[in-house]
């Protein structure tokens, strides 16, 4: 009776194990993971071009992106002992675009100013290979796949409007590109693992800013590199 109560409580918490399971976890084909993305943008962008841009050189206008952290979640389907498919995403983060170039344009601050913000949703599908077998405490893995990034809530900030000369609409088309990951899984228990991975995705877009009919553009390669620390539960 006591055992039944404990089992029911565990099931209610979502921690219940199958009534029959292998000790090595080899029959657990589904895995959900929660963690944190630490995103570093090694972004590169062409100098901004458009009407009334200052002469470049010397006053070239460019951009950089602020690093950020955001929750990570993924669903992983185990295909075999060594092969997995991961569909990963993150809580849409607020990405801040920062001016890089001259300190001021006239008297308007530019360098270091957050001139635009955007949120993005970026699901990534990865086909992964895990080394060793299911009983190993540490299992390195790597994977390749595809990333789709859609930018939304694109806004020019007050500082951005001051730079561009007025209320500005920002367009940033979505991006498709290859993605890759390399990481290691640590077996805490048959159902619980800790993961650390380093991820890269090719995210490229063309930023277009429209201020009273004046169009300024730049091609941006976002180059996001993300360290992910997560906990996974297999079932």
């Amino acid at each position, binding site marked *: 009776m006591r055992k039944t109560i404990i089992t029911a409580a565990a099931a209610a918490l979502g921690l219940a194990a199958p009534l029959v399971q292998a000790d090595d976890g080899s029959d657990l084909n589904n895995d959900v993971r929660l963690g944190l993305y630490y995103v570093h943008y090694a972004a590169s962008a062409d100098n901004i071009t458009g009407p009334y841009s200052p*002469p470049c050189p010397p006053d070239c206008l460019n951009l950089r992106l602020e690093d950020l952290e955001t929750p990570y979640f993924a669903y992983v389907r185990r295909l075999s002992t060594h092969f997995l498919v991961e569909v990963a995403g993150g809580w849409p983060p607020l990405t801040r675009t920062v001016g890089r170039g001259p300190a001021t344009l006239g*008297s308007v601050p530019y360098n270091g100013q957050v001139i635009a913000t955007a949120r993005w949703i970026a699901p990534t599908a990865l086909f992964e290979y895990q080394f060793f077998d299911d009983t190993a405490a540490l299992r390195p893995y790597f994977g390749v796949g595809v990333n789709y990034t859609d930018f939304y809530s694109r806004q020019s900030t007050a500082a951005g409007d001051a730079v561009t*000369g*007025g209320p500005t609409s920002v367009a940033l088309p979505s991006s498709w590109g290859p993605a890759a990951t390399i990481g290691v899984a640590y077996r805490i228990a048959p159902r619980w693992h800790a993961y650390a991975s380093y991820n890269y995705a090719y995210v490229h877009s063309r930023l277009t800013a429209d201020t*009273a009919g004046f169009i300024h553009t730049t091609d941006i390669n976002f180059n996001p590199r993300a360290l992910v620390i997560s906990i996974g539960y297999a079932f």
Partner: protein
Amino acid sequence: MVRTGGVLCAALALLLAGGTLIYNPPARLASLDAPTLTEELGSTTSGQQLLALAGSPICGVDFYYIEYYTVGAKNETATASGALMVPTGSSPPCTGPRPIVLYAHGTTAAKTYNIANIADSTNPAYSESALVAAVFAANGYIVVAPNYAGYDISSLPYHPFLNGSQQSKDMTDALTAARAALPNTFTPGTTDGGQLFVTGYSEGGYVAMATVKAMTAAGQTVTASAPMSGPYALEAFGDAVFLGSVNIASTEFAPLITTSYQEAYGNLYTEPTDIYEPQFAPSMFELLPSDTPIDTLYANGTLPETALFSNSTPNATTYPQLPPQLVALLAIPSNPVFAIGFGTPNLITNDYRVSYALDAVTNPDGAVMAPPSVALAATPQNTLRIALKTNDIRDGSFWAPSGPMLMCGGDQDPTVFFPLDTGTMATYWAGLPAGLITVLDVNAAPTANDPFAPLQLAFQEDIASILASSGEVGVAESYHTTVAPFCTVAARSFFSQF
């Protein structure tokens, strides 16, 4: 359906009405606080001279680019652009209700002229933009300055040069658009204080006076005005040029004015060769304003640099119909500055010059043929003269500005003749109450207690310096542009009384 179409047409007409702002809020192209503006101006020799003359900026200046609807010479809908310069800063003269200066710029051959673009020193409007900003906006005046239809992004494929009716509409349309933009700038607390001053230089001097005339006729209030070095008495000016007093830059003005009036009235010529020598005629109609620098047009032979007329002047053999006095008038003048306008290859044919000159002596303009009369020709026959008369500020029934006017210029100006233009208008208005019209000749000897004496002395020092370094030719070439900052500062001083 018909009703719907009518509503749509009415809505479209409203959208395209003169003075409608195309983008509101307008784009700010530059924002310079007072120290930055001082630094920007101080980075060049001419800017340092301007600072010395205009004084250090009290306010910063935001430069907005306005695009608006106006009309062409045939009342066709057109787009145009210009500048709205708004003083910034927390000093009392830089915020709150401020007076507006409506400024008309001088002649330019550069199609890309954009007086709002202070950020680019290679922009052909840069020096005039800096002048207007330093003199007016940096001292608390909101400045509205159209680029004119036909320039910059304008949809009009020609420029209605010296067309008083069109250009005064362009000015008031720019003013209407700027007033609509003001509440939506980065400094909405800076508002139209209700005072309106109208000024401009050279072509802009003419445009400023034509605008005052049009606004006066419409019952609109102009607080005060200051047309500067403008060709107000157009018919007299044209007659003087054709009779041998060829002004500096005449070969630039000629295609601008003939295209303007051909577009407006359609009767200046049947073929360009009716006016122009065959080698130049094919390109004249669409030549100016141009994306090609005018020095390049001179250098590649598209336009003669100075030779408006042939140095083989009409004589009794080639033109037996000419009376001897007219043959003498048409000969190369003894004045060396006017003589520069004769050469080979020349722009305007002798046939056309003779035709114009015969009309000028048969139907004389009083200011040229019988001063101190300022009467326009009663019945000119030459179509160019008719167009010049139509656009002459004296045309129509007598009029006078309702607010004080300062007419400023330099009496030795070889580009726009001060005695013939400003002098004629001064005579035209001689009977008005004292104080309504003020004439300032920056080249005149200062008189006791003259508030403009320091400007006159400074101008004359500048001319003496140019004479010493570049001789009389240098003075002739730069005189007109040298007058501009002195008269502009005089205009500000004049406006500050009201």
